[in-house]
């Protein structure tokens, strides 16, 4: 079982991973303080465009990846809409009570969730873990000890997926039927997978030290990760997106509401 998705490398891939991470974090927190649904909607649309045009993945995969987050959008939005509180009632039927306020609040929450998802996808689709950790070591002075442990861990994931399939087959071969309890199931998969991973992790650690990996010594880096014009483009684009979203949201609102609280 392997992830072999071909993608085109875009300028987004070449921006500095640490910078990208910090910008994403700032946006994450920033979005929490936006209470005007117009601004948030504009910003989401801008992110969707960025997501479609510049992640470099084929449309099919983008849609597939986006699907679960769309579901989150719908579920977050609808639960707030249907059961939230408000003054102006639009529709009432049993427990369901849709008001204008709750509708707007629901939409707003939905878009917020969507923005979070888009930011996360944008970052993870355009950043190779190896570059991220090299950049974290070089720009943010992360200790190599932690960076390489993470990278070794990332390497274990595909191995674990393969082993998961093996365990699944083994259980079938032993005549284990599917209708056993959930805890039984977790136990059956978790114990062999975990015991194997723990052993692997221990062995990899020893192998790394056998290759003279130590926290004390000065080290050189195979990948020199610095800054380039793409970082400037990235910062500029994000600022423009935020500014335009704000300006358009204030000047040409779709909904005549400025604060959903």
């Amino acid at each position: 079982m392997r992830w072999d998705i071909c993608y085109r490398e875009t300028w987004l891939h070449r921006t500095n991973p640490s910078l990208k991470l910090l910008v994403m974090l700032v946006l994450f927190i920033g979005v929490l303080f936006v209470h005007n649904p117009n601004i948030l909607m504009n910003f989401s649309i801008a992110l969707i465009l960025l997501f479609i045009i510049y992640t470099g993945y084929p449309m099919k995969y983008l849609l597939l990846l986006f699907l679960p987050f769309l579901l989150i959008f719908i579920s977050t939005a609808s639960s707030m809409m249907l059961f939230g509180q408000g003054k102006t009632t639009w529709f009432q039927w049993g427990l369901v009570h849709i008001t204008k306020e709750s509708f707007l609040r629901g939409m707003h929450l939905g878009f917020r969730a969507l923005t979070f998802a888009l930011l996360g996808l944008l970052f993870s689709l355009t950043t190779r873990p190896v570059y991220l950790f090299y950049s974290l070591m070089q720009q943010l002075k992360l200790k190599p000890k932690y960076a390489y442990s993470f990278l070794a861990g990332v390497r274990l994931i595909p191995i674990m997926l393969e082993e998961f399939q093996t365990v699944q087959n083994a259980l079938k071969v032993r005549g284990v039927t599917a209708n056993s309890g959930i805890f039984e199931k977790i136990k059956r998969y978790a114990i062999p997978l975990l015991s194997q991973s723990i052993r692997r992790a221990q062995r990899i650690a020893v192998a790394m030290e056998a290759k003279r990996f130590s926290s004390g010594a000065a080290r050189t880096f195979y990948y020199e990760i610095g800054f380039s014009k793409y970082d400037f483009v990235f910062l500029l684009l994000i600022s423009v997106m935020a500014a335009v979203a704000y300006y358009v949201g204030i000047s040409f609102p779709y909904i005549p509401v400025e604060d959903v609280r």
Partner: protein
Amino acid sequence: MERIASVEQLRLKFPGKDTLLFKDLSVSFYKGEKVLLLGPSGCGKSTLLQVLSGLIPHSVDIPMKAKHVQVPDNWGYVFQDPDSQFCMPFVDEEIAFALENIGVPREQMKGRIEELLKEVGLHLTPHTDIQTLSGGMKQRLALASVLALQPDVLFLDEPTAMIDDEGTESIWKTVKQIAHNKTVIIVEHKIEQVLDFVDRIILFNDHGEIIADGEAATVFHDYKDVIADQGIWYPGIWDEYVKQRKRRQPAVREDEVIRLERFQGYRNREVKIRVDQAIVQSGEWIAITGKNGAGKSTLLHALMKLIPTDGVYELFGKQSEQFKTLARLIAFVFQNPEFQFVTNSVWEEMAYSLRLEKRSKTEIAETVESLLQMFHLKEQQDQHPYQLSMGQKRRLSVAASIVSGQQIFLLDEPTFGQDAKNTFALLELLESYREQGATILMITHDENIVTHFATRRWVIEDGQLVSDEQLVTDHTKGALLSV
């Protein structure tokens, strides 16, 4: 000669064990020597390598005491498991990791990486995903990244234990090329390829004591019986085994067991294995051979219906679709026995399938008891399967799979990584089942097993059964059967 590594009066004990692994062990190694450490599994050879390299106690925390330990200044260590000695996803990054550790300037890295790959005979683009390499290639990559450290001493800890014959050969060829001016200390169980390379052998016994230490040819000659008894693969072992083996008996009956017509197995909706026509009879031992990735395992998975299939697949004259589960007809043994264990003790493991079939308590107890005897696992019956030795795990996985009295065995390289003793024991056990009329389909890379045990050979190439050849035509006179 200049001494390069040594221990004096080493005492070492694993936590939780009552006895010392080493008691006052002293041994020295000299510059340029090629040394082979031999001994039964679990006698502490690998542990000694780790002490000599300083990994114990520096990286692995095991209490030890020694009067004096001399660790070489520059050493490299290649481990057993090809899947757990890399920390980076790509070939070039992995070698670069070693270069970074010793502070090689970035500008020189690309050149060094290409040099090192050439040195170990890996002709591939440096930026290749490590997961796509075969086991033999992974071990040569491990050698390359160790050579990046420019070591004087190489510690090789069973580098071929989990590698097939082809890979094993490539690894030793590489070692011979690169190591002429280095000191090499090797732990290995398959010594056919190593014997002409080493000039000194140190032989251990069960208690971690040195029983012989000297020139390779002399030690090998004088202690051959001991070496054979320890289950080590040495040159000529098959000839000796065949000589003392009793005449094989033909199977008791010959009925049609499996019929395949235009049989196809799918992975991700693509045909990955195709058998146009084949009929298998009881009492046959079919060796499935072919290159890595040709589709041998896929064929077994298809026969067990672990993957979607179509075409005609009959078992004992009935459509395979008519059976709710094939687990009662077919026993399947995986390469890694650990993944097959589903319970917490050896006894429970054997009883598991019987319980699923709702057999009576006394019947279960009787069956398990007889299997424990037959597979020499009586003393271990209360242990957790993971605590067994490799040979014991393998025996348990076979015992637990055949417990419901299946008549068809599908085995995926069951002798892989086993020592000689365990291999012969397992093959003989399978042979006894075959004589009683069981059918065996077994993937193997070992030509000796094909010649001396199989009655028929299937060759798989590019996902197709391309050759189907009877190795014995007449059971009574067949030269291959009556050894």
